[in-house]
């Protein structure tokens, strides 16, 4: 029974590492602030959730399930519950901080990559190209 928890926990931790590979190299190689933010926000949140959840499930393997006793089995579940609380906190706080940083970047006037910028994404004929050359400059064009 206990090795099932161990195997599920190890699978979750390895999945989290795979998602962190995507997040790290997306953060390194994407061409734009917004795309980097996309990789960092999504990949980072999911990777943290999966690794902490995997550790919590792996800890369930050490709990003595055979002789269930209210005074000895339930206190062993305290640490997995705390790890679950960390999961919930990460699930709330990481998208919130991503949103705040994205908002700050947009108000700073960081331009997204477009086709007219002469970037590498536009030239290969494979990726989608924005139709409006300056979609974020409508308000400031009024003179």
């Amino acid at each position, binding site marked *: 029974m206990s090795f099932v928890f161990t195997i599920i926990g190890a699978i979750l931790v390895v999945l989290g590492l795979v998602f962190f590979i995507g997040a790290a190299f997306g953060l390194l190689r994407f061409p734009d*602030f917004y795309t980097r933010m996309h990789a960092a926000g999504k990949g980072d949140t999911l*990777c943290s959730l999966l690794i902490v959840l995997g550790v919590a499930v792996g800890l369930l393997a050490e709990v003595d399930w055979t002789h269930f006793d209210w005074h000895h089995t339930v206190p062993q579940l305290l*640490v997995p519950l705390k790890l679950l609380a960390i999961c919930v*906190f990460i699930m709330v706080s990481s998208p919130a901080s991503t949103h705040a940083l994205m908002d700050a970047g947009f108000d700073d006037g960081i331009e997204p990559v477009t086709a007219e910028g002469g970037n590498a994404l536009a030239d290969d004929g494979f990726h989608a190209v924005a139709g409006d050359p300056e979609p974020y400059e409508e308000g400031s064009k009024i003179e």
Partner: protein
Amino acid sequence: MTTFYIITGVLLLLLMVPAVVRIVKGPTAIDRTVGVNVIGTKTAVLLVIIGMIFKRVDMFVDFALAYGLLNFIGSIAAARYLHRSKESPVGDRERDAKEAIQGASGEEARG
């Protein structure tokens, strides 16, 4: 199982290197802040894994929770600091547009 968690921790540490590269060469200050945010979240995860290696998770879980909380507060503070607006939290771009519209209508009335 300790070997598995040691390998996981070392891989997490190695995968923080791209974020450090982004912090060093990021074009804007907010890029660097994103890298710091990623490294902070991963440090909280790494603390849990260190607790698994030392078999003292009951102690390290509290460290991880406190570190995650500090990281969140730091990110929000950096975002508010790097925000360009000075008077209101609405943002400069909206105010610029309103001023431009008012200026244009004023010129029309004068002309």
